[in-house]
């Protein structure tokens, strides 16, 4: 398969189809509407369904229903729309259903702006839905990774029976890059004995549900789920390191910001500052041990995000506050340049 030139949003949609997702439920919002638009064109060609729901809330509940049958299913939105989906996502977690939720983040809070941001880090990693719940969060940094992580998200979701969030931003969603897609027609579904596909008098009823009136029963389901979370934390941590081996200052950044930081590391090295980059790819599970190991020889860390410092605490916990952790960020839809990050590297002496 040769490369094609695609917008990030298109690459997510096409990759989802090629990984066996034939059910898309969405509601338009900039900067991710191309996902729905692409699905509307392509799904009829592949015998799938693209449905524009009457709201984000109905879209996520359609995902809940479709996921109950064991089919691969997804929805997508941008920051305010994701907030609306919160209740449904918690229901899906409580029902142990796999699905893909894409957040192409925009400036916030409120209706905010339509420009790229990373202001939904807390929401995605700590409390996407109410209750003792967690979802896997992937943070791609290129159009190629948007395509690859879409496939990965479906596989992880099926393996652990959990929703997975692809956390992108307006820049990644809107920009065009060469991308190599998975081949068409090679997806093989795995067996899902829990799916509510009709018992045909051959087996017991499968029940998908998140309501447990008896608290002891509910506690048992939560504890069982947390055992699965522990497995995910053990097996599914993903990260990337760039020039951290001899680094004096380690930048910690994910998504589009990690690419800006990569350039900034090069600029710093030209000036004789030994900079490196640690890039979490899974924001949950967070690469704690790996970051702690990378930070051992460094004298300080600098977190760079498109928000007011939402990842800083995760970094401090990962390294057990053993080194000063600085922060540099832009917010509201603003993007720093590599030179801005270089200035922050040069200036930053202390911790936040």
């Amino acid at each position, binding site marked *: 398969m040769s*490369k*094609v*030139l*695609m*917008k990030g949003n*298109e690459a997510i949609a*096409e990759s989802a189809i090629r990984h066996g997702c034939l059910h898309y439920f969405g509601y338009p919002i*900039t*900067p991710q509407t*191309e996902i729905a*638009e692409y699905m509307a*064109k392509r799904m009829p060609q592949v015998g799938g369904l693209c449905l524009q729901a009457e709201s984000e809330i109905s879209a996520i509940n359609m995902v809940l229903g479709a996921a109950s049958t064991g089919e691969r299913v997804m929805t997508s939105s941008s920051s305010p729309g994701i907030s609306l989906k919160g209740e449904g996502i918690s229901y899906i977690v409580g029902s142990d259903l796999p699905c893909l939720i894409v957040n192409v983040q925009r400036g916030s809070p409120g209706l905010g*702006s*339509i420009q790229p941001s990373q202001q939904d880090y807390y929401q995605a990693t700590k409390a996407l839905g109410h209750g003792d719940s967690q979802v896997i969060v992937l943070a791609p940094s290129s159009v190629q990774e948007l395509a690859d992580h879409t496939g990965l998200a479906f596989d992880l979701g099926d393996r652990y029976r959990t929703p997975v969030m692809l956390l992108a931003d*307006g*820049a990644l969603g*809107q*920009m*065009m*890059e*060469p991308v190599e*897609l998975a081949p068409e027609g090679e997806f093989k579904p795995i067996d899902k004995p829990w799916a509510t596909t009709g018992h045909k008098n051959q087996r017991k009823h499968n029940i998908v549900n998140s309501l447990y009136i008896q608290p002891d029963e509910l506690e048992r389901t939560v504890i069982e789920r947390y055992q699965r979370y522990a497995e995910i934390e053990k097996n599914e941590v993903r990260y990337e390191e760039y020039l951290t081996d001899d680094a004096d200052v380690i930048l910690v950044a994910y998504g*589009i910001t990690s*690419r*800006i930081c*990569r*350039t900034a590391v090069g*600029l710093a090295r030209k000036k004789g500052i030994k900079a490196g980059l640690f890039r979490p790819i899974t924001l949950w599970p967070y690469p704690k041990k790996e970051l702690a190991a990378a930070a051992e020889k460094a004298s300080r860390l600098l977190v760079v995000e498109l928000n007011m410092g939402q990842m800083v605490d995760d970094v401090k916990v990962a390294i057990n506050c053993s080194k000063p952790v600085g922060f540099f960020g832009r917010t509201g839809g603003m*993007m720093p*340049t*590599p*030179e801005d990050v270089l200035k922050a590297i040069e200036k930053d002496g202390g911790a936040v």
Partner: protein
Amino acid sequence: MLPKLRWRPSHRILIVAGHYGSGKTNVSVNLALLLRSEGRKVTLIDFDTVNPYFRAADNVAELNDAGVKTIIPDYANTNLDLPTVPPQIYSVFDGGEDETVIFDVGGDDAGAAALGMFSALISASGYDMLYVLSMYRPLTAKPEDAAGCMYDIEASSRLRFTHLVNNSNIGPETDKNSLPDSVGWMSEIMKITSLPLAFSASLARYDISWDGIGDVLIMKDETVRPWEIRPVISKSLI
């Protein structure tokens, strides 16, 4: 040796349309600058009502500096990015024959829909309409799909394309053969649609083998991606 571009519009109204991400804005902006450099009056209309990113409105300062008049939606690139059509558009139908008016239209049939409201005025005035396309965009990679997208745009704009523009490129990974490899594909589309190729288009920084490509619009592209270093341009060199 760099190829030439002999094609010129034969009517005062020039419409540039095509699939999302095919390079319509790049072609519009660079044609506007080229025609202006030859002494014509040029007005460029940002007629993208569907996509608030990467639009002609981003190039206003550069175009105005070069003497190209621009008409952009009132709300483009503000917090209120509404799908509006600027009312000044009506004025372009009253201009003289010494002016070229370029409509930079939004992607696909959705982007061209708003053009339909001007179709009677445009038809009465006479027009050229360019269909910009790239072999590396997956939804127009098959010649029959490229033709299908074109017919959809014609139906929604109530106008007919007059020429094709081959802007086949694969972004930063464009190499010598990216454009030459698309020649056969373009011939197929010419056959299906019975339209002539006006020219091919390529960014100046792409290293292309020009043999057999024919006429080419060489385009500058000043898009700086967030992680790239902004080139320092000394004012004294301009």
